[in-house]
């Protein structure tokens, strides 16, 4: 979908005008292409202690590994801000802070680099969660990172983003999921993820042999794959090496055929609300592709109505398709005993399910339901090295949002720190990350892909 305003303010005359009038000036976001370097420029790693050293070693180490680091990323890493250097990314490791006083030094050093941050730059904090069992000063310092990061992200311009990795107590910052989260947030795969703190809960998960094809050898099912975000999820999973089973209702068969043929996958036409949907998905994946590893619950519908005017049909159909169907499918898959090879379930939530949206009580109930469902499903998969997580898209440029009234759409696009709508590929990249083998340590979480939308967390 086109964003004429974004194009305008990035043209010569339009840019000058927007600057003079103080209008929002969203920058075109840089997105991932296979073979791209992880970041294009030096990376500054700040903070003290063994965790900061470990992160610096990971980023700067040689590919293939040395010094107990299994695989380095061979980046140009600085440990102190060089004057006049333009950094591609700044990683602030704050796991060692025990008092809010200790935030000043690393944060202010990071601050000195922000004006020179490259286009599409990244600021990433690495911290520990504040717990009720922490000493008050420790908890204050740790929770402070949350407020700091969210505010910092709102200052960044030029398509730069600020995000954090919050690594649970006892989990090393070099745990697979922490490493993969750091890499995802550094990369252009996370172009529309902004102002988010991503929790890493355990050291489960496995680093991929090839970061460009982390899903090689994995069989993934994507529901609602005939069009929109689902079709792009199929594309991205296939690009990352997965064999993709594309699922949609028979009425969407023509689009489904095109997607399945594009990704060299297979098309499976079924209604996910059918009682045997889980069994049919499993039968197809195992008989045709030898297993099932990733399930992306993307299919969803909207039937917007103010609650005061809500009909039973509108309420029930949204809940049935958006959340009840995936609960039943998950139950069937879990009961089958086949979903045991480090499975990944990724479900599509929505910022509506977090912050609420007028006219979408049914949709928000279903999407909030998904956030609860993955939280409770992830522990069921943990014994097999599996996990379940959700992605909550904000305003994404799709056929669905293209149908919004023009002015509402223009306003909705600007209501986030990146001042633009995301693309379906941004959601798909987050799904692919959570579906990947190293993400096993992210347990029952919901990752927002919203450009730091003003509403909700």
């Amino acid at each position, binding site marked *: 979908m086109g964003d004429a305003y974004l194009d305008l303010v990035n043209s010569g005359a339009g840019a000058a005008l927007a600057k003079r009038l103080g209008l929002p000036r969203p920058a075109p976001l840089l997105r991932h292409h296979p073979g791209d370097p992880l970041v294009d420029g030096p990376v500054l790693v700040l903070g003290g202690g063994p965790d900061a050293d470990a992160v610096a070693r990971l980023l700067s180490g040689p590919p293939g590994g040395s010094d107990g680091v299994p695989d380095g990323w061979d980046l140009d890493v600085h440990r102190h801000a060089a004057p006049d250097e333009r950094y591609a990314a700044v990683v602030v490791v704050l796991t060692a802070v025990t008092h809010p006083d200790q935030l000043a030094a690393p944060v202010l050093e990071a601050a000195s680099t922000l004006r020179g941050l490259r286009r599409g730059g990244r600021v990433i904090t690495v911290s520990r969660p504040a717990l009720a069992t922490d000493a008050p000063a420790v908890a204050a310092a740790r929770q402070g990172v949350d407020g700091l990061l969210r505010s910092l992200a709102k200052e960044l311009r030029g398509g730069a983003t600020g995000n954090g990795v919050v690594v649970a107590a006892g989990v090393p910052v070099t745990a697979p999921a922490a490493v993969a989260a750091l890499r995802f947030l550094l990369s252009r795969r996370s172009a529309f993820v902004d102002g988010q703190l991503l929790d890493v809960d355990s050291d489960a998960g496995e680093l991929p042999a090839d970061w460009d094809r982390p899903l090689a050898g994995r069989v993934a099912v994507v529901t609602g794959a005939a069009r929109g975000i689902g079709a792009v999820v199929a594309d991205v999973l296939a690009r990352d090496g997965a064999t993709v089973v594309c699922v949609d209702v028979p009425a969407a*068969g023509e689009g489904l055929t095109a997607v399945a043929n594009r990704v060299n996958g*297979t098309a499976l036409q079924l209604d996910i609300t059918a009682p045997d949907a889980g069994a049919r998905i499993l039968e197809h994946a195992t008989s*045709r592709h030898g297993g099932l590893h990733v399930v992306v619950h993307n299919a969803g519908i909207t039937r917007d109505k103010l609650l005061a005017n809500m009909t039973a049909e509108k309420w029930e159909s949204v809940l049935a398709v958006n959340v009840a169907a995936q609960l039943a499918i998950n139950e069937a898959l879990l009961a089958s005993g086949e979903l045991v090879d480090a499975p990944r379930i990724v479900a599509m939530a929505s910022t509506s399910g977090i912050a609420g949206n007028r006219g979408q009580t049914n949709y928000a109930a279903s999407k909030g339901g998904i956030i609860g469902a993955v939280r409770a499903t992830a522990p069921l998969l943990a014994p097999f090295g599996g996990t379940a997580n959700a992605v909550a898209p904000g305003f994404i440029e799709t056929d669905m949002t293209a149908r919004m009234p023009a002015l509402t759409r223009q306003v909705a696009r600007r209501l986030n720190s990146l001042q633009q709508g995301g693309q379906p590929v941004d959601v798909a990249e987050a799904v692919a990350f959570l579906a990947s083998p190293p993400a096993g340590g992210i347990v029952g979480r919901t990752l927002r892909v919203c450009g730091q939308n003003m509403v909700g967390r």
Partner: protein
Amino acid sequence: MRMSSPRPAYVLGGNRIPFARAGGAYAHASNLDMLTAALDGLVARFGLQGEVIGQVAAGAVLKHSRDFNLTRQAVLASPLSARTPATDAQEACATGVETVVALANKIALGQLESGVAGGVDSASDAPIVVGDRLRRTLLDANRAKTAPQRLATLARIRPKDLAPVAPRTDEPSTGLSMGEHQAITTARWGISREAQDEVALASHRHLAAAWDAGFFDDLATAYQGVVRDGNLRPDTSLEKLAALPPVFGKRLDTPATMTAGNSTPLTDGASTVLLGSAEWAAAHDLTPLAAVLDAEVAAVDFVHGEEGLLMAPAYAVPRLLARRGLTFEDFALIEIHEAFASTVLTTLAAWESDDFGRTRLALPGAFGVVPRDRLNVHGSSLAAGHPFAATGGRIVAMLAKALHQLKAQRASDEPVRGLVSVCAAGGLGIAAILEAA
């Protein structure tokens, strides 16, 4: 050189687009568009992108001269490997089944490991040709050596030469339409209007139930916004069917009984069937649904009035069953293509007739009775419509799936067989036996 003895050739699946009435949703789709769409859906269902299929054989009854390599063009437009060979075939309404049999036989003989059979027809995008006089004049002008000669030749054209000639499916040897031919047969066997309407009603009810049950989820793929067969009338009734005026046999001495409701309409559509050896299926993680066991073709002399135009299957089936030592009781499912409701009924009547058995089949008496509860149980052409060359693929893929399901339900080693019987223009007919794998 490998001299292999015959081995089973299996139906592995199929795909068709929902059929649409002529002049309807597919009015602007060509045979190539529709056959490619059916092939695309087959490739997507079975993950055959980039695959070299041993041979794709398909055809169309109503065909433009530009479509001389229709099937090959469809292969090239599909995600199959461009190294997949293709063949066009044409045998009127028997085209689809004939392509299945031809490829299955090649697989059985070890000449192929895999094949895709199919057919397509557009009664909407049919070729319109110019009259013979105009055509000859234009060809003469083309052969003229000088400009004056060419002008002189073209000057022979008269306004009446310019009237286009629409395609007809009338029998060239009799000038009668298929419906008029069948009306004669219907009258000869004394088939009632009510019996024909009942066959039509059952066809619509059965087909609607199959769609509702999701039976076609892995047999059909929506195309151009059409998600179910456009001719299907789930809410039709005997009363509604009885209200339709007769359209064929109005000049016969007997009351006319054939209506638009108990005859198939002109239809657009395409179908494909994936065939393979057991080895090829296993290598591609595909489950054989049914083996193509045997087939028989027949023809009747309708020109001199000896037999009805669409009665050839009444001869093909008894010969086929005799060769295999089988009776109707040995079949779990029986598919008789509903060109007209009365085609089914006259065929059944012939098999139940002592006289027909003795005089035409040289049997001691009647050939046999088809158990009606095994006949066309998922609906047939009266409800689905009948895009001539696409009907065979529709029937074979659907029957193979149904037989495979029955076999799984019965969980016994008893063979679960299905019979296909398709009549065709020109007094042709084809019959085939499938056996559940």
